[in-house]
């Protein structure tokens, strides 16, 4: 077992390459329904990683990521449908607008911490949902917007899939760069001890707000991608249930790892498909999964694996959140 782990670790790049290769050939070897499932995994992996920039890296628990995801989706949808914008601009506008709205929301939210912060994010997401749901003339209300005029090229499911794969790939690379940067380290310090960072001359709120805006922009990209793939948008995208999906994805994969939400997304989307096909009680199983995770695997799948495997790899153990000091 240990040897296997060492091998896996030393061949990280090889693993990544294999994964990429696999993702690349998905449209050739899978049925369309499975391609769209993998597509959804990719989009939710990006959404999860975007949320995790706040959640796992900065320690800001947001209950409202879906609001900004929906802003991205509706931006692309409305610009294409109502204003006939060029496709590229409609897509690029999504993260920009999501970032701006994220900035406005974040400006209020970072004034509070912990539970109050979480509740504010939830409240703002519900406001976004309500606006989308009620504003029939602009957003289509509960009918959503269907038959969005995406370029014909993307009518082919594999073309659309490659668009998702490329954009998600680049976005994740950017997020990875961010969390490895001095800025990313500073965010982690804020997560660990926000009060202390102020005494090393860090303007705490400004950094929290920056994380909020960045996270929102990437959520916007995810929303836009899903809008393009499905060719339609619905108020559900902004609903708190969607936020819960994203939170569970982070929790399931483990939010102290960059790869956590990616693994989480794959497992979660797969499970939800399998279970909801067999039974109507998907939500029941979801509940069971959450209880299990919180009680027994607080650092998620990736965290669990690396905690068990880290001692084997490095000869030292990292503290789990249970035994963390002060």
């Amino acid at each position, binding site marked *: 077992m240990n040897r296997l782990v060492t091998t896996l670790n030393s061949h990280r790049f090889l693993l990544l390459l294999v994964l990429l290769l696999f993702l690349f050939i998905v449209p050739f070897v899978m049925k369309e329904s499975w391609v769209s499932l993998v597509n959804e995994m990719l989009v939710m992996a990006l959404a999860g990683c975007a949320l995790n920039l706040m959640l796992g890296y900065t320690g800001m628990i947001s209950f409202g990521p879906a609001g900004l995801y929906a802003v991205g989706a509706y931006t692309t949808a409305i610009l294409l449908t109502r204003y006939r914008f060029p496709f590229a601009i409609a897509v690029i506008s999504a993260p920009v607008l999501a970032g701006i709205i994220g900035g406005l929301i974040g400006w209020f939210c970072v004034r509070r911490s912990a539970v109050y912060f979480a509740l504010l994010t939830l409240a703002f997401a519900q406001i976004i949902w309500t606006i989308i749901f009620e504003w029939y003339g602009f957003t289509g209300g509960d009918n959503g917007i269907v038959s969005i005029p995406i370029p014909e090229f993307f009518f082919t499911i594999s073309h659309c899939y490659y668009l998702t794969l490329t954009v998600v790939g680049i976005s994740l690379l950017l997020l990875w760069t961010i969390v*490895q940067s001095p*800025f990313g380290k500073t965010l*982690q310090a804020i997560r*660990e001890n926000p009060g*202390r960072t*102020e005494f*090393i001359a*860090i303007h705490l709120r400004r950094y929290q707000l920056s994380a909020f805006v960045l996270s929102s922009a990437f959520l916007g990209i995810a929303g836009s991608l899903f809008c393009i793939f499905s060719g339609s948008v619905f108020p559900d995208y902004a609903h708190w249930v969607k936020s819960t999906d994203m939170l569970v994805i982070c929790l399931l994969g483990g939010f102290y790892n960059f790869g956590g939400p990616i693994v989480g997304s794959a497992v979660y989307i797969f499970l939800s498909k399998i279970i909801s096909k067999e039974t109507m009680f998907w939500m029941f199983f979801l509940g069971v999964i959450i209880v299990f995770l919180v009680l027994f695997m607080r650092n998620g799948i990736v965290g669990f694996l690396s905690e068990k495997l880290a001692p084997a790899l490095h000869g030292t153990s990292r*503290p789990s959140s249970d035994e963390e000091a002060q």
Partner: protein
Amino acid sequence: MILETQKLAKSFGGLTAVHDVNLHIQEGELVSIIGPNGAGKTTLFNLLTGHISVDSGRVIFKEKDITQLPPHAISRMGIGRSFQRLNIFPRLSAFENIQVAVFSQQRKSRNIFARASKLARHETEAILESVGLLDKKNVTGGLLAHGDQKRLEMGIALAVEPSLLLLDEPTQGMSPKESGELTQLIQKLVRERGLTLIFVEHDMNVVFGISDSIIVLHQGKILFEGKPDKVRKNEEVQRVYLGDERGTWSSLLRK
């Protein structure tokens, strides 16, 4: 004069925690603040670093009024501090704990595209070495021994290159041996870096061992200030400390 306060005051509800305190700290001085529990020592620190807002009075640092500034701005001007309760970044490694502070000092914290692990290594390791933690740089902060965590916290404070350092009970919870080592380290760092140091301390051996001058705080007011010898002989100070359960005071008086 590096730090001056004019009639600094703070009360919580009806309780006056700090009452018209006038400090005059010269550059390069090593000043300790002593006083019974609840004398207002930590509150005074919190006022100086902007942690809590000032009711009245002024704080002047390097001839600039810093009374209303937020903590990050005060820290940027060159006042570093450590805390009574441990204040590190527990899940980051010792190296990262210091590195984050070095980034801030070098104004690199906003750099979003560089790879952190390749930056500021030299500076970070220099600080780790000066607080004696270089060999433990990869240990997760929260897993270090208590004394090492205190050192790490001091390293974080030093990394922002303060000219004035405030240490709140640096030797709290340490064994006499650890405490002695840390005291030596503090003295060394202050001398090497030309720091001005103000520290709150209960261990009278440390206080009388290294201070240039001592400020005795009692019920939020300065009761007495002066050289260690004078403080030792002062009757008023003796009276205040008579009930001291540690008995350290009386033992020192007998010396």
